[in-house]
């Protein structure tokens, strides 16, 4: 398919809109989390806590944006990586269940991240079981969706998982080696969660980008 200049301009505008909205939402989300923590006389959060909270906020915001896009297809066509309004309507069920899963996972992760601090909403044990329960539910939802996907989506998921596997292995092995040599601090428990949940998200974007599907024709 040959793009016209106006097609390319429209796609570029849409991509910038998506990127801009994502960046603004992410910054606003993190500011909100930090604002909620302010004034509670808490110790300065360490790097692992900040990164894990950031990943959790991304999941929550992604769930909210995808959910809004699915509920309001005209806006969804502009915000989401879809061809048009009709595609939002066709994929609505799947978009809504993905949105709910992302929002729940992000929220449960936020609760877990702060479970051992003064800002805890739940104690560590309850936060763990909430997180584990949500993870189990989202895994079941993902597996059920995978069975309903057609071959393009399955290929994208398989590519994402492969990319994540390679990437996470390299990071973990190098990090472990560095820690074994006492050159860096060993990964903290929250780092492993951030690497897994953040990594699979990043790998999915890379897989879509590599196929040239970030801007749909």
């Amino acid at each position: 398919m040959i793009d016209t200049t106006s097609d390319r301009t429209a796609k570029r505008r849409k991509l910038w809109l998506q990127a801009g909205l994502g960046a603004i939402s992410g910054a606003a989300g993190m500011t909100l989390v930090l604002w909620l923590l302010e004034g509670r006389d808490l110790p300065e959060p360490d790097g692992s806590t900040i990164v894990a909270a950031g990943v959790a906020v991304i999941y929550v915001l992604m769930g909210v944006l995808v959910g809004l896009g699915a509920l309001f297809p005209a806006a969804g066509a502009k915000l989401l990586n879809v061809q048009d309004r009709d595609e939002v309507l066709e994929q609505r069920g799947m978009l809504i269940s993905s949105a709910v899963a992302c929002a729940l996972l992000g929220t449960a992760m936020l609760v877990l991240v702060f479970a051992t601090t003064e800002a805890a909403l739940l104690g560590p044990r309850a936060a763990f079981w909430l997180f584990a329960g949500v993870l189990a539910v989202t895994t079941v939802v993902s597996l059920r969706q995978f069975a309903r996907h057609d071959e393009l989506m399955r290929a994208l998921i398989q590519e994402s998982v492969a990319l994540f596997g390679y990437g996470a292995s390299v990071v973990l092995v190098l990090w472990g080696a560095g820690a074994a040599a006492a050159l860096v601090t060993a990964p903290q428990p929250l780092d492993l969660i951030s690497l897994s949940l953040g990594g699979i998200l990043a790998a999915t974007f890379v897989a879509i980008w590599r196929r040239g599907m970030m801007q749909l024709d």
Partner: protein
Amino acid sequence: MLSVRNRLKEHRETRGWSQGELARRLGVSRQTINAVETDKYDPSLPLALRMAKLFAVGVPDLFIDDWEPEE
């Protein structure tokens, strides 16, 4: 990555079908049809065979590979 060009859009438009209509007939998503037509995705062999059958053409008439075997 090995990749082939295709004439799916041409055959589809000859029939007067939208991407959605072709997707429905083949049992895949419209996103898949769009990705094949724009050379972003090479379909599996079963889907390529179904496409060829649907348009009553041979697979090499639908998918074009410029590769030539060495002499």
